[in-house]
């Protein structure tokens, strides 16, 4: 999947296969793109004439809208295909959907799919650039990139920081991408949650495991609080949401015990009163809206780099120059 001449190769399937240098290239490229969203006219011609399909087999508002803003602010032509209202629900399989899109001569596909490996599967079968917007429990690379950008904005660095992912690690693509990316950049990473929601062998990835949130709060510079899918309780992973909130939920009272400046991230959408209490979500520690803002910049950077843009011309590109 590596195409010579582009800093990331053809696709962005995950962070596991990226080097620290490649991840930093994306974060650094995102910096100049942040400013575009602050302008009155939020549009530069970087991807003019490019066609991008946002292919969402799973419901998503935040990620899809974030990608769409990123694409439109780079002047790409975009088409959204959601699982409802498309041939996807008529039983057409992933390969056929992709090949049909390809036959309409597109340039990039942003895919979200419920099965781990779906983005790679697609990337291996079509010549367009493929960007993973979340595949099953595998990876969600742009989410981790925006998380890392937010952390770097606050601390000025990633290396040496202690980041703890809290909650349902077993089912979380956000957790995996964060673990791979943060470890590559030299952060210390921990996970914290009920053991029913921690995958076997997680420690072998090089992360610390905390069973109680209080320990994690003593240790961490950053808590990245994951969304708890409410159906996990029905599937028997947890006794009740109330109990989850009491034991693993991030509350003001718990984070006030932190010995140092503690940043709280959440990829959204939040279940207030379950994994995160409102007094934290709306409080000074939370960077949740900053994450959303950074999401657009990071996705612009990824689109730009995959389209063949050079990292060192990003500043010029946003000024309006052709690339």
């Amino acid at each position, binding site marked *: 999947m590596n195409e010579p001449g582009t800093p990331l190769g053809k696709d962005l399937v995950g962070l*596991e296969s990226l080097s620290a240098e490649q991840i930093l290239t994306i974060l650094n490229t995102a910096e100049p793109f942040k400013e575009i969203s602050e302008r009155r006219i939020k549009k530069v011609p970087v991807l003019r004439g490019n066609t991008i399909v946002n292919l969402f087999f799973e419901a998503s508002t935040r990620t899809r809208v974030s990608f769409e803003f990123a694409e439109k602010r780079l002047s790409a032509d975009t088409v959204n295909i959601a699982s409802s209202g498309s041939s996807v629900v008529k039983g057409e*399989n*992933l*390969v056929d959907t992709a090949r049909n899109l390809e036959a309409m001569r597109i340039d990039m596909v942003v895919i979200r*799919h419920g*099965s*781990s*490996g*779906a983005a*790679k*599967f697609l990337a291996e079968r079509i010549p367009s650039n493929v960007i993973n917007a979340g*595949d*099953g*429990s*595998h*990876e969600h690379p742009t989410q981790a990139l925006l998380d890392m950008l937010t952390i770097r904005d606050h601390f000025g660095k990633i290396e040496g920081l202690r980041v703890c992912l809290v909650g349902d690690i077993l089912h979380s*693509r956000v957790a*995996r991408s964060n673990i791979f990316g943060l470890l590559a950049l030299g952060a210390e990473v921990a996970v914290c949650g009920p053991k029913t929601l921690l*995958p*076997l*062998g*997680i420690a*072998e*990835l090089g992360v610390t495991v905390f069973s109680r949130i209080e320990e994690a709060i003593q240790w961490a510079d950053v808590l990245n609080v994951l969304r708890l899918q409410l159906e996990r309780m029905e599937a028997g992973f947890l006794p009740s949401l109330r109990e989850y909130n009491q034991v693993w939920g991030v509350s003001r009272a718990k984070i006030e015990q932190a010995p140092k400046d503690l940043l709280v991230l959440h990829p959204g959408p939040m279940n207030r009163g379950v994994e995160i209490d409102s007094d934290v979500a709306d409080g000074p520690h939370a960077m949740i809206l900053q994450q959303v803002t950074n999401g657009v910049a990071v996705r612009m950077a990824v689109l730009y780099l995959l389209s063949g843009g050079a990292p060192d011309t990003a500043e010029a590109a946003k000024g309006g120059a052709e690339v």
Partner: protein
Amino acid sequence: MSGPLLIRGGRVIDPSQSIDAVQDVLVKDGVIAEVGKGIDPPKRAREIDAGGLVVTPGLIDVHVHLREPGGEHKETIATGARAAVAGGFTAVCAMPNTDPVVDDPAGVGFVLAQGLAAGAARVYPMGAISVGQEGKQLAAIGEMYEAGAVGITDDGNPVMDSGLMRKALEYAQAFDIPVADHPEDLGLSGAGVMNEGLVATKLGLHGKPNAAEDVHIVRDLLLAELTEGHIHLQHVSTAYGVEAIRQAKARGVRVTAEASPHHLILTDERVEGFDTDAKMNPPLRSLEDREAVREGLSDRTLDVFATDHAPHHYDEKEQAFADAPNGIIGLETALGLGLTYVVGEGLIDLPTLIHRMSIGPAQAFGLPGGTLAVGSPGDVTIIDPERAWTVDRDSFLSKSRNTPFHGWELKGRAVYTIVGGVAVWEAGA
């Protein structure tokens, strides 16, 4: 009935009679007529010069899915029986998890008839343990036996109700056929699609723990001990499972068991990259498990080398990993893999491998054959142990292509497959 067949000067390996010597084998009237040195050719006999070749009892694969009826786009009994002989197998046991399930004598008769019509490997039908493989009510075990079923199994939808399993083990004793189980506790497997462990964690795929298999292996062993029935454990893939079977055998429990080529050769690392041709059930496990399965095959804790040949159409496998069906095909690669990796790496010697592919499976399922004893079925496999070849799935006689071994360089393959005295398959030069 064709004329006599004289196989001259091969290294005859017949573990059932502890023969390993350069001899001739004469097949006449469909049965083994003579094994010895310097046999005079009868009139009009066909002669095969087996100099430099290995002559063995016809190989038997007790675990294949031929998909007919209901899955003819994946495989038919005819294509499966031809794939079998191309891989050196003269007989196969067809699993009953078809559509409809083979759970009555009519279904057994259909499989037998299609097998005979194919004119390739012998096809021995297996019947279901329970009606529709639904795990509720015993299928017509006695009638299926009378119609020709050689064993019963709910492979594909394993029996969760231990009480029903007990009854099957008791009831089948009247017919002296094995109850074959795919040991898996489906509750423990949950949403798992591969081995639970580091690789699954990295890939974000749900894992099946070894315990899902081990719990049912131990259950089955306890029930076999309780009932004095014969349990046959299919495709054992875990270290603990192998050890549990070893101990049960030492206690005298009537248990036979299988090892599959992929569990002897691959580990769950093969799943990296989400290759659906590395997806099967039980899944590829850890290196430790693989070594234990090898040890089990070596010391005869595992009596049988069986493929679990599981054809799937290419577009069924061409999906995201979790969405693709379980299983790989094995009939045309098993012998080459066994010779190259199991024997070639010194795990067991050639006669031991032949044992696990001939008299081992024949005894486990009470099948005729698996031996070159005079009067036995005239089923013989002639192997060129030095023949180098490359696995090319596009040249398979099977209808399906789902193998993780495509492109592998192997050494050794069947060059003649003889069923009832007739060379039904020849490799050519």
